[in-house]
């Protein structure tokens, strides 16, 4: 079935991205990778017939969350410059 294949591929990418998020050299990359994992998760939710959750994940998990992460590392970077 198509859906299943899509899910499988997305799942694999998610895992790769997850490892990237952990092992990426630069924090920014790591954060973006984590955001991508969330984004892919929201696609999975769509395939699983959960549009509400998908929206939420997209808006919160990959959107806001990433923003907050960035704010945080930004802030940290500035702290260490001083």
């Amino acid at each position: 079935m198509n859906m299943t294949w899509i899910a499988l591929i997305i799942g694999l990418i998610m895992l790769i991205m997850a490892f990237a998020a952990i092992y990426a050299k630069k924090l920014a990359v790591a954060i973006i990778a984590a955001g991508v994992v969330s984004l892919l998760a929201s696609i999975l939710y769509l395939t699983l017939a959960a549009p509400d959750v998908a929206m939420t994940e997209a808006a919160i998990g990959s959107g806001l969350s990433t923003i907050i992460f960035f704010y945080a590392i930004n802030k940290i970077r500035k702290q260490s410059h001083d």
Partner: protein
Amino acid sequence: MEIFQLEYITLITGGLLVLTGLWGIISQKNLIRMVIGFSLFDTGLHVIMISIGYIRNGTAPILDKAVDKVNAAGQIVDPLPQALVLTAIVIGLGVTALMLAYVVRLHKEKGSLNITNFKDLKW
């Protein structure tokens, strides 16, 4: 049982994400990466939950013209896990934000993001 089903794939993906997240939390010394690990862990959990609520070939639990009230029961997926996940996502965001705020403050205090440097309390 047949493994090659949508919900199984997603379930296992979720499970592996959870483990990956845990791995991130316990293996990375960088506080930010630990928080990233936690958010992966969280995402994995949510994927698992949604997979659990999936009904094979079901549609979204929204009644409209395609899904009418009478036949809905046979067509849609379980709305409850979705509701739970909604809540859980928001909670996860809250926790992540709080953790990050802590991380920023910790860094401010000690100028380091390495968790091994925060061992002032022990024994």
